[in-house]
């Protein structure tokens, strides 16, 4: 199991050090600093073995978090734990920075004492942690309150406490997708996938049972078969439903029920959380197409022309469009002409950055640039990194639609109809690249 956890600043100074196991000595702190943080070469692996001691690390801005062990620990668990630790810290004091960590070191020790015991991760739900790790002392609690805390921490529904009350029962669903693309210069899709998340903000009283439904092909097909006719079933499932390659759920979702009936039922945590993640690869709407044209004119000049085409309903508007065209390292000057938006050569980033605030569907825009190069005697060819794109569109590129989210709370007197529900779709670019 986890032998210890260290947090360092960018210089390698220890900010937090908590050792759980006897086999980890003080020298482990230094070993990591010397061999990883101060290493001359770039870090080649997130797992390092130094003198029979294994170090796992993640970096958040310039803070290093390292877990150390001498045993055959579950590596996936260690990283999941480190991410969780970051989440917990962030939800307590915001950004993970040297200053915040120093300001909250007592709190961090208290958290580490609670969420890791002898190197075994325990409860790491911020919702329940905040009920008893407050830095305020727990003097004033009654016996009932105390047992409520402990039963929540250890209970089946560790993510939600009893007795939550809202005057207005309301929930927000955000379908957030990032669409990833790798396209060849000839416009052939090399790989494309959507990784999506359904994020829910629930402000619901009591312990509500929720059921979430979307246009999952498997469910729709099943319903179609049981329904009127096969023909009708097909017509509804044709364009309406999407094939989900895989999905994962927040721990509140009953997985065995999903496995057997493919229904998503749960008691939600209070406030904001991620209900599910999913991935699709079929019938993805690629919101933009990038057509690059790079021409080398002699050894000291490049001509670049890039056309972008929007490919969605004309009534919708894409926002925050940014096209990043890489330029060689020996660029001496760039002249750009674009039809729309603003384009600038950023020498520090070795790229031309073309920004367009808004663009409607089924439109097209173009940029052309002349890049002057300094003559070099460097034999190595310029690697031509891909042209990347950023954007935001108000629909889900996977085609996912929320069909319903039903809320049942039998003990309290509000029904599904009384809950105010909001649904929003946002499609963003993930890694959206076109080779040139």
């Amino acid at each position, binding site marked *: 199991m986890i032998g210890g956890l260290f947090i360092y600043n960018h210089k390698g100074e220890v900010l937090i050090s908590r050792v759980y196991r*006897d086999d980890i000595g003080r020298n482990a702190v230094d070993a990591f600093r010397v061999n990883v943080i101060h290493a001359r070469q770039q870090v080649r692996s997130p*797992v390092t073995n130094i003198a029979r001691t294994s170090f796992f690390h993640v970096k958040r801005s310039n803070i290093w978090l390292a877990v150390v062990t001498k045993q055959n*620990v579950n590596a996936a668990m260690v990283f999941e734990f480190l*991410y969780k630790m970051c989440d917990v810290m962030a939800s307590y004091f*915001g950004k993970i920075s040297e200053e915040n960590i*120093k300001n909250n070191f007592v709190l961090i020790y208290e958290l580490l*004492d609670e969420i890791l015991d002898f190197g075994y991760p325990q409860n790491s739900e911020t919702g329940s942690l905040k009920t008893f790790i407050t830095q305020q002392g*727990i003097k004033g609690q009654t016996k009932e309150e105390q047992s409520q805390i402990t039963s929540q921490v250890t209970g089946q529904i560790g993510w939600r406490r009893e007795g939550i009350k809202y005057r207005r029962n309301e929930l927000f669903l955000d379908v957030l997708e990032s669409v990833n693309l790798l396209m060849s210069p000839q416009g052939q899709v090399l790989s494309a996938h959507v990784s999506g998340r359904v994020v829910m903000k629930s402000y619901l009283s009591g312990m509500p049972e929720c059921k979430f439904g979307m246009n999952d092909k498997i469910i729709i097909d099943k319903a179609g078969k049981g329904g009127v006719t096969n023909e009708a079933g097909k017509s509804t499932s044709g364009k309406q439903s999407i094939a989900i390659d895989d999905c*994962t759920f927040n*721990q509140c979702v009953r997985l065995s029920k999903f496995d057997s009936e493919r229904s998503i039922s749960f008691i939600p945590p209070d406030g904001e959380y991620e209900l599910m993640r999913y991935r699709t690869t079929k019938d993805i709407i690629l919101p933009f197409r990038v057509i690059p044209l790079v021409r080398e004119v002699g050894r000291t000049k490049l001509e670049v022309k890039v056309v972008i085409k929007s490919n969605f309903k004309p009534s919708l508007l894409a926002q925050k469009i940014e096209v990043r065209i890489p330029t060689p390292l020996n660029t001496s000057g760039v002249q750009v002409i674009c039809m729309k938006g603003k384009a600038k050569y950023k020498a520090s980033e070795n790229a031309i950055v073309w920004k367009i605030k808004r663009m409607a569907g089924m439109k097209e825009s173009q940029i052309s640039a002349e890049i002057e190069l300094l003559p070099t005697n460097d034999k190595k060819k310029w690697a031509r990194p891909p042209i990347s794109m950023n954007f935001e569109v108000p629909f889900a590129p996977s085609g996912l639609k929320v069909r319903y989210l039903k809320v049942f709370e039998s003990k309290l007197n509000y029904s599904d109809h009384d809950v105010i529900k909001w649904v929003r779709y946002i499609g963003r670019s993930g890694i959206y690249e076109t080779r040139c």
Partner: protein
Amino acid sequence: MEWANQLCENRQFGSKMTDSKYFTTTKKGEIFELKAELNSDKKEKKKEAVKKVIASMTVGKDVSALFPDVVNCMQTDNLELKKLVYLYLMNYAKSQPDMAIMAVNTFVKDCEDANPLIRALAVRTMGCIRVDKITEYLCEPLRKCLKDEDPYVRKTAAVCVAKLHDINAQLVEDQGFLDTLKDLISDSNPMVVANAVAALSEIAESHPNSNLLDLNPQSINKLLTALNECTEWGQIFILDCLANYTPRDDRESQSICERVTPRLSHANSAVVLSAVKVLMKFMEMLPKDLDYYSTLLKKLAPPLVTLLSAEPELQYVALRNINLIVQKRPEILKHEMKVFFVKYNDPIYVKLEKLDIMIRLASQANIAQVLAELKEYATEVDVDFVRKAVRAIGRCAIKVEQSAERCVSTLLDLIQTKVNYVVQEAIVVIKDIFRKYPNKYESVIATLCENLDSLDEPEARAAMIWIVGEYAERIDNADELLESFLEGFHDESTQVQLQLLTAIVKLFLKKPTETQELVQQVLSLATQDSDNPDLRDRGYIYWRLLSTDPVAAKEVVLAEKPLISEETDLIEPTLLEELICHIGTLASVYHKPPSAFVEGSRGVMHKRLPARTGSGESTESPDVGAAGGSAPEAAPSIIPSQGDLLGDLLNLDMAPPTTSGPPPPSTGMQMGGMDLLGGGLDSLLGGDIGGSPAMGAGFGAAPAVMPASLNAPVGGGLGDLFDLGGVGMPMGAYIPPKIVWLPAMKAKGLEISGTFARRAGVIQMELILTNKAMSVMTDFAIQFNRNSFGLAPAGPLQVLTPLGPNQTIEVSLPLSTVGPVMKMDPLNNLQVAVKNNIDVFYFSCQYPISMLFVEDGKMERQVFLATWKDIPNDNESQFQIKDCHLNSDAASSKLQGSNIFTIAKRTVEGQDMLYMSIKLSNGIWVLAELRVQAGNPNYTISLKCRAPEVSQCVFQCYEAVLKN
């Protein structure tokens, strides 16, 4: 709302914005000041002081001197302060054991506190203080806490048992805590169950043989129930524990799998990977024909792919594991190649791992895509990544034969970039391609030689030297090239030195006359001037070999090399099995068994996959190793990575040979420079010219029969075969005896011998295939090159059953004469390609032209006369057939059996003149006049034909038919 929360929190922690000041104190007399503050009456001041102490402790300052003062602060109802003091205690108690005792009372008291959080805190902290006296006092409170009414206390106590066991295992056993812990597996609270499982698993690890966990169907059922209810971490503990269980039969195995599969949808990657581990392990026990088995296989792919959208560090762990899974069960991810394509912004460790998996998944179906990607990667910036991409191209060539050509041309393109490390890497892989496809791509050698000077890495230098040595006969200046390396011999790495030694010996064996000096030079450098034992030993052995028996030296050093394995870095099967049992853990990241990096008794136990034991009717023999499907067939041909010494020596750093070891050295062996040029060398030189009896037998006799295969180093044993002549049918068509066309050593163990026959007007190729290799051969096919008479197989080669080791099969292949025509030299030469599952082999053989004599070759007398006159005399050729004791009638009837028809017979002065006609399958007529004189064993034969080229062959037929 969220904003409101945030604001609220900021306010809450706003008061502590000054905590960072504790990190800045470095003044003198600090300890003294702290001491005073700790003893202050004001609570706030005390608390501040303890914080300062903890901050100092964190940055590594020794504040142990403050022990009594800090412990004094322990008695407080301020929980925050208490926790800080406990933190201090955990750190320093060991160095101040006597004073630690002062804390015991407070601990014991806290264990009785009304607040469950304080009870748990006390028992949790006590377990972390590794001081004997404290441990003694821990037992009673722990016993109580294990049975506490509050689950929070029980779950903390469960872990505390593991802590105590780590300090004093005997004590835990004596106090009966293990039984209590086992009882907690049936606790009503899922988190208590999970922690009890974690603690028991850890304790069990240090007692490999104890039946501590005692997993049985009942307890497994409890665990599976708890699995649905506990925290994500608890699920990991339970799944990891489940993976140690061995179900009794396939039904139980299936029912566990069914209850574990829902975990594959968990958001926590570690839960997913641990579930994958359980499934991969239990799957071994399921019968493969079961529907559920294939369902399960299908269910595994999507979650594995999803892991790749996690954060990069987790992707890395996932990829290392996928690498194992792909080796164990390639079918799971064979269609998912695209998800392993490298993204420009992936961290380098993710890129390298993806590349590895791409190569493992490469197949004929996706090779075009893979190659296009690899070519793209080879132009990237990161040196390691580019190198690996270049290497990957080479591995694709070896793995997917259809792509070899494209790979080679891609590699040549890359060599043209002249980027130093790209060139070197390309040369290293091209060496392997040469080994895999001999005699196919040697045309690129010239390009490689151009880059000789730029090679500065040992591996590339060694590869280049190997190439020069191996193809010395085709490189005009091989000796100069090798000599240039020799100058700095002692500065080279061992790898290069060994390779250079071998290459020069090879060169010498191939071109003995020009390179004597060179070989002497290298041998003396290796044996006399080097202190590397490996180099010296090899040098001596070559020396002895060359001086004692150069023929043997040739056989050994220039021996055929066995085929190179497709997968060069497969994990050894038993290790792979063990690693599959450790999916998700560090062992699976390192690809090493835990015993390789874990100290002490933990992890020494080797885990194994369960053998398949059927419960029902379908009992098969357990086939653990064979479960992967493809692995066992390939096994014998895989070259062991650390070959035995002999193999290493003989096979020039590449692989052990298929031939047997060197012949026993003769007695009276001497060492010395001059000896090298003594008798041994003479016989070597002689052998090449044809004087040596041993070589003579092989080389001298062979050309008569199979001149086309002159290159083949036919062993002396071949001579025997000529005496083995098959019994020809006296009156039927003449069938030559079968001879070896393709020796086993040329064809990776496949030996082909055969002959041709004409039976009932059909030309047959009669083959004997013998498998002299260790592995089964299948998928035989045959093809002819274009030849003089358009011979072509009339049907496929009928080898229906796989050919096992040491098995022989006879096949006859009907031939047609309607294939494409190309004039060969000699005319009756036939080039054949035989393919099997291992490789394609080429050989050439000669067919007796009598196979082509058709049945309606009897010419009308008049026509004969007219034709005879019509053919110009220039086209007539005359031959002598010696030592033939047949009379003319016997000869005539014998020839008739082979479709050589006697049209007329004339007797002039006691000399029989037989006029005969022959028609070839392509319509060419051959007219003959055979003169037989009674009492004279020498016949004279005149052949007239419009295509005089065939005459020589026809004469050979006469000779063969008449003499057999």
